[in-house]
């Protein structure tokens, strides 16, 4: 726990200016991740700029869909009627995450930017390339049951822990951000990064950029979307594997498909190959199995997480079958 200064921002541009002016400043939203990490000395910002007074809580209809303010709480989004009706996968993903108390505090912006729960990152007794670049990755030779099977590097095998972000990935969400250099839009699929040689950089967001809102485009498949999360206990646990699926099925044929996975990679894993297999195919067990194969085609297991590959396969088949309303005999 380092000494730090605390400022409460009253307007958006003031907040951005404050953070832009101090390389060691951070925005503070719900604080459920940042404060924890500060207490454990994992992060040491010198300044916190509290953005909770900014008018970024609204959830509103737009001509193309829905806009969700960055400070809308995870609970508000999960229970919002428009969200539940048009983007059920988002509501389900949020409700599958954390606990009611945490969801009341946690915000959309903070959720997108939450750090990995990799044990080795969370404890300063360990070296960690993400925390201290170049110090090494003890997870690779160590205990890596919760780690990545897709897109990892020899520098980092951590996974992104967010459930919400997996749903957003399946919904083609767009993140609206604003920094000292102005506003821009980042498609969700480009928001988070793979670790490569720079695992300490989680996202493509610049340090002075504030997440303002998230746009969700309406679609037929978004309305028919679900989330499936497999975890070690019934609630209040991060995903071992999770799947967000959205399908538009007409007379047994899949018109459009979106598929994303959580708990498997350094970012929400959009399964584009699998989507290609699904699109235009018959909604049946065979199709879903083929899609599942495509998802894990390039998967690389670690010592303790090989199970995730089979689990991901089965989870994909189960969820696609559920969304399509098709009975399958199970993947086993």
């Amino acid at each position, binding site marked *: *726990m*380092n*000494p730090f200064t605390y400022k409460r921002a009253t307007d958006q541009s003031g907040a951005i200016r404050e953070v832009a002016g101090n390389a060691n400043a951070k925005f503070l939203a719900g604080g459920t991740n940042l404060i924890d990490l500060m207490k*454990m*000395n994992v992060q040491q910002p010198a300044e916190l700029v509290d953005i909770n007074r900014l008018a970024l809580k609204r959830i509103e209809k737009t001509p193309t869909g829905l806009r969700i303010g960055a400070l809308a709480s995870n609970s508000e989004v999960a229970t919002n009627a428009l969200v539940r009706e048009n983007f059920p996968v988002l509501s389900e993903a949020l409700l599958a995450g954390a*606990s009611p108390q945490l969801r009341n505090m946690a915000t959309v912006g903070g959720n997108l930017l939450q750090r990995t*729960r990799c*044990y*080795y990152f*969370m*404890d*300063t*007794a*360990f070296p960690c390339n993400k925390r201290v670049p170049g110090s090494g990755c*003890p997870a690779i*030779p*160590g*205990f890596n049951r919760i780690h990545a099977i897709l897109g990892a590097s020899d520098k980092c095998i951590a996974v992104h822990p967010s459930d919400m972000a997996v749903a957003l990935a399946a919904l083609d969400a767009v993140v609206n951000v604003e920094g000292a250099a102005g506003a821009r839009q980042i498609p969700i699929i480009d928001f988070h990064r793979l670790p490569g040689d720079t695992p300490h950089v989680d996202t493509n967001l610049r340090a002075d950029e504030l997440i303002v809102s998230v746009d969700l485009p309406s679609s037929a498949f978004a309305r028919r979307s679900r989330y499936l999360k*497999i*975890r*070690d*206990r*019934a*609630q*209040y*646990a*991060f995903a071992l594997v999770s799947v967000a699926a959205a399908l538009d099925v007409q007379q047994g044929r899949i018109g459009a498909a979106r598929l994303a996975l959580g708990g498997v990679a350094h970012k929400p894993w959009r399964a584009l190959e699998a989507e290609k297999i699904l699109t235009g195919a018959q909604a049946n067990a065979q199709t879903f199995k083929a899609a599942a194969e495509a998802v894990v085609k390039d998967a690389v297991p670690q010592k303790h997480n090989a199970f995730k590959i089979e*689990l991901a396969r*089965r*989870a994909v*088949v*189960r969820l696609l079958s559920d969304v399509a309303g098709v009975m399958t005999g*199970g*993947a*086993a």
Partner: protein
Amino acid sequence: MSVSQQSKTTNQTKSVVGRPLDRVDGRLKVTGGARFAAEWPLENMAHAVLLSSTIANGRIKSFDTSAAEKAPGVLHVMTHENAPRLKPVFTNPAEGDAAGRRVPLQSPVVYYAGQYIAMVVAETLEQAKHAAELIRVTYDEQPPAADLDKERGKAYVPKQKVAGKPADSLRGDVDAGLRAADARVDETYRTPTEHHNPMEPHATIAAWDGDKITVYDATQYTYGVRHSVAMSFGIPEENVHVVCKFTGGAFGCKGTVWAHVPLAAAAARQVRRPVKLVTMRQQMFANMGHRAETEQHVTLGAKRDGHLTAIIHEGISHTSVYDEYVEPFSKPTHMLYACDNFKASQRLVALNVGTPTFMRAPGETSGMFALESALDELAYKLNLDPIQLRLINHADTDPDEKLPWSTKLLKESYRVGAETFGWSRRKPQPASMREGHYLVGMGMATAVYPVNHFPSSARVTIRQDGSAVAESSTHDLGTGTYTILTQIACETLGLPIERVEVIIGDTNLPKAMVSGGSSTAMSVGTSVQGAARAALAKLVDAAHADQRSPLYGASADQIVARDGRLALKSDTTKSETFTDILTRAGMKEVEGSYDTQFNDREKKFSSHAFGAHFAEVRVDRDFGEVRITRFAGVFDIGRALNMKTAESQMRGGIIMGLGMALMEETVLDANLGIIVNRDLAEYHVPVHADVPMIDIVLLENFDEPLMNELQAVVNAYAEVRARGGRAALATVVSVVGSAYRRPGARMLVTEDGQTVGAISGGCLERDAVEHARQVITSDTACVVEYDTRGDEDIVWGLGLGCNGVVRVLLESLHEGSGGARALQFVADCLRVRKSGVIATVIDAGRAINQERGAADQESGADRSTKIGARLPFDERDDEHASSAPGGLFVDALSPFDESGARIREDARVALTSGRAMTRVYEAGAGRTEIFFDVICRPRPLVVFGAEHDAAPLIRLAQTLGWHVTVVDTRARRATRERFASADSVVLCRAEDVTARFTVTRDTVAVVMTHSYLDDVELLRALLPSPACYVGILGPKQRTEKLLAQARAEGSWFTDAELARLHSPVGIDIGAETPEEIALSVVAEIKAACDGRGAGFLRDRNAPIHDERAATTAPPEFEIGAHAAARERATSVACGSSS
């Protein structure tokens, strides 16, 4: 109005123990008023933060503390380089374990990751934390031993015992057992390291005053903290004052004094200010012990019918490199199942981790998982139901300690559990039960935990204002200690809840031991009760001595305490308040103290709580996710002092068990030796969504204490026989004058002098054992006479109320001997709950007094009268058909004409009267004395309903010697206190009655619940049962309605069943009051069961005695004093049949 209020209070104060009273500290807890260790607001308090090692093995090369020392607010930085020398704390297990052998901050050696290596004291917590992070440490790092698998080659034999047993234990011959087996199970089981994770972190506030110190600590053992702190600092124990008013969970990790406690004290001494030290959750994973990882191997051998022929339980667990703790997983296996061939073996593997410690049910938790899993494997192999397999191997006595059980309702637990849970719906074929994506499984396991108790003291003060306070240094870990002690004090003192205050958690109070091992309720509860009685006795003395008191001259046993008053039992209008008594006596208060001591050296019983768990589990067949969907636990834990807190304990234990089985696991990085999941986000304990509905049934008072001793003797002999040992039986055959035990009392003596049962209050046993060993050696029988009258009282009587002549038959037991046959007969009687009589030859004046044994008899060489020859008769008034014929016995009497017939008649008399007796048969010069011993089955009366009108009925039935059970169908628990004299008081929902009770042909049921719905349920259950009599209170029309309702709900009664229904209950004697109604009901039961009309005898045109009694031949040839006995017996027989 006032009267009814009064009686309401009376009921409350009288039955307060056992009530599901809400926690008396509940309000404090939910409003934040309960002050935990870290919450004491001391002036000028500084804060300490500990720095933990980031390596698991090696030495500290250097510290750079300069930045930390300069940081704002820092008062002191302590490392091993400047720490005061602390003395090692040697601990006596009886005093509770303490800091372990490693003293903190005394050397540069690092034994495990997370070990404290430095401490910063600062003005605020944040400043201390920040400064601690500024300390730079360099290490000389060694690869740690962090992987049980890699280190297993270095496994060693523990230096200490394993739960009191040698690390290698052997009983019988396991190899022979395995050779004799038809089926065999060989399985390896692993359990992970687990952490206690109480909600409240460990926390200590230390405040010195010169050489004295006050320590506020989160602990399970205030006196243990006192002891350790005194030792560490080399100061007298009296200088250490420890306070702990509330403990926020512990599960064992606060039973030990860990390093942060002396460190907080050292810090406070250094900065000369009070210091608060709260450990971080992450630090709790390294420094406060844990349940060690185990790898267990279980081998079972069994016969095709399920009988175990061998049990082997062996394996390893880890300890630290600097200290030793053995997770005693083989502990329950020693005693749980009956098996002659048993072997246990435990080894330790040292790892670079903190020392493990006891965690909730140490040994049972890990060991039962392995043993019970192996048993299930065996059941599957043998195609037996898992419950059946456990029943087959039920241990009737403790196979390890060779003692009878104090109580054991394990079979009952299986049965009630199976019914509560719906075990019959289980399909044994794997994967045969499915639901959607789920495979559904049902499983069960036995539960066991020993009864532990520790000496403890308490003080109770009754104050002039009519309130009282009970004090002890014990603890409330969230378990409900405050509440149950309040209940015990209230009940004993006859005060309402709000007038009793309980003060605990302070070493200025009378000493209590560690609140661990489920010992507190029993140990401290007993002390509080004793202290309350002592205080009350002083109050009684004051009243007794005071002429102005309405109780003047009354003795303690004539007085009751209730509603804040002392009253005369015989006339409760003669009473006065505590306040009046104390005020007049000029006393501000009276105080009583009590030290509870437990004598474990002369242990007569093996005491354990037993139970059975039942779970329904769903496994997602694709994902392997396991979820528990239903759970039932049935337990025999003795008396629950508070049904609510007791059930909470059971439920909490089950939830912790679910956590252990499905999710809890502490993972150590095998390369670095650092725990990776050291917080509650990644160390998964069950959340609400993981916990199904849990049905808890506490079996209370199913025990029948009198039967127990007899059963114990029978069981103990079976045991001796099974292992080919030898034993003698001592039976009291006559008593003239007063004695502690009556004729028929039995004691089994083994060749090594072990005894089961008793023949006196303790004064005759020693000598009897000597004689018994002689008869074992000579294989003979003899009668020994003890005269405890007059001067010899000093030798024998010991003031235990023995003042008479007691004759004891001592006989060597072996296959076919009279004593063995008798025990077999007793066993049969007990098993089927029937009555019987055993005729035993105890004197044969014609021949010499001590005869040779049965070998000669069988050879026919010696046909003379034999001491110890037996002839059993069962209820049918017949010679016991199933056992050996009475031939030898009759032969023994061959000089007497028609002796067989006479003996049979006398046996019948004894049976009818239910009394043991002695009879002499003479012919010519020959004289034979026979002792008739009765194994009596009392008439079982079950009264449903616990309103006050039940009380006179119960009293009257008991006067007649019936066995009375009161079933409370409505209150949260049985109102035991109001029915203290009942043999058994049970809480049971009306619809569960058939599940909870075995109703036999002689069961008499009286329904008086005053609840329409309950009565319907009871009628539905009882009418089709074999009960011989079902009476129901209330007018005929009501009963008609009840029956109509029962039929509407699908019941159908035969005429025979309806014929057993008595409604309105009772015979026509014009009964009005509850007492009169009781008389009428009891008379009706008696008449109905004996097939009599209940009219006036003068109108009877037949002999008064029924046929059986009437055929009893008049005594012809008794002599001497024994005639009187016969007469008494006969008159009782008359009385009971009129």
